[in-house]
């Protein structure tokens, strides 16, 4: 029963870790560079989830002031993650532009084929 309780109260963290590990797995195991970047953004999103989970109060409300409410979730993680999302998408765009350039130079975005071409040249 105690373990079940821990499972329920820490479920957010478990899923966060699952998403993070899935992103890591994609980055290591998949050779397609676009998919690698999607894996990286999964990894990134799991960090957003971790921050926002920490800021939440169950039974509280969104941090918009109103005299009717007493409990608000912590606004600071929201501010940090707002910045992180926008920075994340700009680095994502830069990575994809690099992929496009790599495709121009090598004619493929598969890592293994690129290595093979490098070795052959």
């Amino acid at each position, binding site marked *: 029963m105690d373990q079940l309780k821990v499972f329920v109260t*820490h479920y957010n*963290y*478990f899923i966060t870790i699952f998403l993070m590990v899935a992103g890591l797995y994609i980055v290591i195991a998949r050779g397609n560079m676009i998919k690698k970047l999607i894996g990286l953004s999964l990894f990134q999103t799991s960090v957003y989830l971790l921050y926002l989970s*920490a800021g939440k109060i169950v039974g509280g409300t*969104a941090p918009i002031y109103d005299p009717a409410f007493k409990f608000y*979730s912590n606004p600071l993680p929201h501010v940090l993650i707002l910045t992180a999302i926008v920075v994340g*998408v700009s680095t994502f765009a830069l990575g994809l532009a690099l992929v496009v350039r790599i495709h121009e130079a090598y004619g493929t*975005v598969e890592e*293994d084929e690129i290595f093979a071409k490098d070795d052959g040249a």
Partner: protein
Amino acid sequence: MNKDGVSGAVVEGASVQGTGLIKGASIEGVPVESLLMMVLLTLLAVITIAIVRQRNMFGVVMLASIYSFLMASVMMVLDAVDVAMTEASVGAGISTVILLATLHLTKSVEYPQVRGVIIPIFVSVVVGAALIWGTMSLPPFGIVDAPVHMHTAPTYLAASRDHLAPPNMVTSVLADYRSFDTLGETAVIFTAGIGVLMLLKGRRRKMLGESEGQGDRGGEA
């Protein structure tokens, strides 16, 4: 703790249970909000498995878009409304558009699986186990007296209330206390935009020589 009465932390007179959870609707002792959260998170995990397994790149991009929308819903339930809006527009909108543009430019449709999966699975399992071990000492989800709500947050909340405008605390914290974050963010976006433009410049010139060109992807961030 806090004499102003507005706080992320414990306020006198509020009905807080021994577990640190605010009294509210609950099923078998689990708050309804947490249950909703768990359902959405489980869906998120399912979509993630689908992303890992999907071989068709177009499918992967669509699943990534679904993932972003689900993540935005999760953020809504986590009371992060501003973040949810940004995630829905930026994560599900702009990311999908630039991914589709990249797919078009690289003609990446399907890819074979040629590498071994033993080492990646091993690394992932070890990292995951270490992280799960690490979360065991974290406070339970959603309690009022978690350390994160004790420090600086009450100050921000009280100050936002005393400012009177804007009522959205995220806006007031962002603009009044953490403007340098946004300055740094702008610098990053600017640099990334220049980088994208420079990387795709040669291509654009070549395309213009051939046909009318693809359209600029530099200004999307």
